């Protein structure tokens, strides 16, 4: 890849922190993304800060121990972030908040309902139509967030293929809608449980 960039100024630590925290205005985020694409040094700095931040989040209430471990740039970046960003729990709820904060319209699912328990043979997916001509992409993930099935359709109803039997456990699913004019919409991430098929 050889995308040229004319961004000569490096973004400040404050701006990088805001980039990580998704709080930059759209135009400024686009500029920073363009700079990061072209600037290895800034990408490495941001990557380091993001890693330290993630470790901090995993430690939950023990965020203060981060300081001795972080190099200067990462510390500067970290200290500019709100505490709830460092300590906030991860998971589907956080994902939902992130999806909403990205400004993507959300549409409703029909089935399986949130936290529903069902047998493998009962699994089918249904959601509300967004608008005529929409194309939908369904993503099914296991309890670890790994994608176990992903498919596209113009319908609002999908069944698993006969060969695909879901094992017992917790699953997450989400539908993205691709609309005319390169617009997008998404459902919240919903979860359901497959119970024993016996």
């Amino acid at each position: 890849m050889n995308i040229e960039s004319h961004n000569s100024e490096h973004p400040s630590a404050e701006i990088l922190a805001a980039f990580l925290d998704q709080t930059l205005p759209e135009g400024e985020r686009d500029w920073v993304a363009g700079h990061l694409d072209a600037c290895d040094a800034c990408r490495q700095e941001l990557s380091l800060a993001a890693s330290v931040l993630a470790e901090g989040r995993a430690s939950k209430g023990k965020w203060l121990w981060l300081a001795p471990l972080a190099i200067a740039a990462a510390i500067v970046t970290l200290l500019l972030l709100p505490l709830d960003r460092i300590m906030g729990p991860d998971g589907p709820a956080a994902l939902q908040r992130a999806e909403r904060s990205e400004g993507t319209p959300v549409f409703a699912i029909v089935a399986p309902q949130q936290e529903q328990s069902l047998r493998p043979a009962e699994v089918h997916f249904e959601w509300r139509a967004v608008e005529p001509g929409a194309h939908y992409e369904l993503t099914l993930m296991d309890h670890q967030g790994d994608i176990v099935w992903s498919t596209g359709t113009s319908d609002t109803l999908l069944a698993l293929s006969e060969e695909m039997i879901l094992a017992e456990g917790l699953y997450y699913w989400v539908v993205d809608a691709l609309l005319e004019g390169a617009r997008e919409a998404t459902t919240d991430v919903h979860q359901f449980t497959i119970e024993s098929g016996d």
Partner: protein
Amino acid sequence: MDLLGEEIEMATLQDVSNPAPDRQVQEEEVRAALKETLLELSNEERLLIRLRFEDQQPVREVARVLGWSSEFTARRRLKAVLKKLRGGLETRGIRGPVS
């Protein structure tokens, strides 16, 4: 797209961007198409591709660097961008072995 969709998509892109010697004639054309297609992406989309496939960062790390709270988001964005890339290449007459 199946479970390995991301890898398959990338294999397709790698295939068209690294042709065998006997396809050398096509190389410039393919590279030009890839460059044009990349330029049609947003800065964030290009950054996403660079982080994942040039820097070879794991998806979890890509999500962190882009400030996304979940790996889910990164996987879904990657899928969408790869689809866009493939579409751009196909529009320019470039097709990989996986359709």
